[in-house]
């Protein structure tokens, strides 16, 4: 039962005014601009875009400023904004093979054509705090070399050509969209990938880690990890042809996993796939591992009953906005619910006391 409760408006207004002041912090310290956040907190911006499921670096930076750096709150703001946007249409699937790569590495083939390109990575840093960054006015410069000519072929293409890896069936079937229809289980791989790419990084990471520790083990190698820019092409109905409508940075991870095979089919490696907005490689690798774990049934494996193999468990808990909404609502007024529970407990105690007295009297 719900009972309307009035009051508290003044307290709420004042709380929000104080929030605004706290957000600003010490006014003796210069205020952050949205552009500063976009440029200098770019990996936070990328995470907010990925989990907010809306590619717009300026909006993500604004959300981070508004949320005082609480990224889940920022993602919430982006998701709320997203629902106000009319859907103009859908783009053609991006061609990650044509990506302008900042980074491209393979853990399986050392001498892959196109080479191992490290890009702006934290890998091989010593993870020691750099006190030089406390100083302002640094002007770091990247080294340059003659740009590479030619393509960056997909690593899995080589395995695919020799039939050593399970082939991806090409299709142009319109995928289901979890933002348009409620989730139903079994979800199928397109819906799983959509849920994983916008899922909470921490959750997807932990699920992936659990498979590495033995709960649904699938022996992954990072066949290829690439980060870079791809064009977004969309069919324009009023023109009758497709044009590029923008360019986005994506992280793609392809894992090469334990093989399957049977009496009728020769042994073959299998795949996991991760594709995420922005430079977000921890998330993309995690996504690929979880994608692979969830594919046990279609690859004819037995389920170990591991959490990462349970589609409903993974997909129903991957979304941090759903999770935080349900979790945090329990701090909001539940006076009536609680009053009824309190009443019940008092009644039970009264009844127990009465029967005790009765027994004592007998």
């Amino acid at each position, binding site marked *: 039962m719900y009972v309307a409760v009035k009051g508290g408006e003044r307290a709420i207004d004042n709380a929000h005014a104080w929030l605004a002041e706290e957000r600003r912090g010490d006014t003796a310290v210069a205020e952050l601009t949205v552009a500063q956040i976009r440029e200098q907190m770019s990996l936070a911006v990328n995470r907010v875009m990925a989990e907010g499921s809306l*590619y717009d670096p300026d909006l993500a930076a604004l959300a981070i400023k508004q949320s005082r750096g609480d990224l889940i709150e920022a993602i919430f703001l982006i998701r709320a904004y997203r629902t106000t946007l009319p859907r103009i249409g859908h783009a053609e699937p991006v061609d990650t093979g044509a990506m302008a790569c900042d980074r491209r590495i393979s853990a399986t083939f050392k001498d892959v054509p196109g080479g191992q390109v490290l890009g702006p990575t934290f890998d091989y840093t010593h993870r020691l705090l750099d006190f030089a960054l406390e100083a302002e006015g640094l002007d770091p410069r990247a080294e340059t070399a003659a740009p590479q000519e030619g393509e960056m072929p997909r690593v899995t293409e080589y395995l695919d050509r020799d039939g050593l890896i399970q082939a991806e069936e090409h299709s142009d079937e319109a995928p289901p969209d979890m933002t348009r229809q409620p989730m139903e289980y079994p979800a199928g*791989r397109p819906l799983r990938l959509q849920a994983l790419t916008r899922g909470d990084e921490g959750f997807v990471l932990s699920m992936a880690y659990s498979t590495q520790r033995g709960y649904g083990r699938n022996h992954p190698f990072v066949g290829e990890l690439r980060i870079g820019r791809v064009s*977004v092409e*969309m*069919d324009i109905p009023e*023109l009758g042809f497709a044009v590029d*409508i923008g360019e986005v940075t994506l992280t793609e991870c392809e894992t090469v996993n334990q093989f399957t095979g049977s009496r009728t089919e020769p042994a073959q490696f299998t795949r996991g796939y991760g594709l995420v907005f922005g430079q977000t490689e921890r998330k993309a690798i995690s996504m690929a591992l979880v994608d692979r774990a969830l594919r046990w049934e279609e690859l004819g494996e037995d389920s170990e009953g591991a959490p990462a193999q349970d589609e409903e468990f993974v997909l129903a808990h991957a979304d941090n906005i759903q999770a935080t909404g349900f979790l945090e609502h329990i701090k909001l007024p539940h006076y009536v619910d609680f009053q009824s529970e309190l009443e019940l407990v008092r009644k039970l105690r009264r009844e127990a006391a009465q029967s005790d007295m009765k027994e004592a009297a007998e």
Partner: protein
Amino acid sequence: MTTTAPEITPKSAARKGWMSLLAKARPAELAALMRDVPAPGFVWLRPPQIGGVMLRGRMGGTGAPFNLGEMTVTRCALKLDSGEVGHAYVQGRDKTHAERAAVVDALMQTDRAEVIREAVLAPLDEAATTRAGARAAKAAATKVDFFTMVRGED
């Protein structure tokens, strides 16, 4: 890997080229280049509208499509007083950027096309190439050169 695109005429291919360039241009760059272009009179066929476009990926990069998430896009359509219709679909939420892109699209269909190409499209294309080249040069500097202490039989 876009197999769905039908064959298009050379005229459409050229238009696709400049519309794509305009969509990906930095709004400030386009604004600066348009400053010296006399603004033509026009009426809106569709005033600028901000919306979302759902992006898609393919499983394994080449397989069946799945939904990846949305991106903000601004679109508009206008008609010059001389009759040409300009369309724009540009990334982001900048309505004046969409307007400028649609004006250029329309002007490229007039006899001022060559002037516009010189004044606006060529510098935009150059800026895009320079930007991409600068990143490619930094990436190339981080390419690993393996050397082996002891080589095998060869």
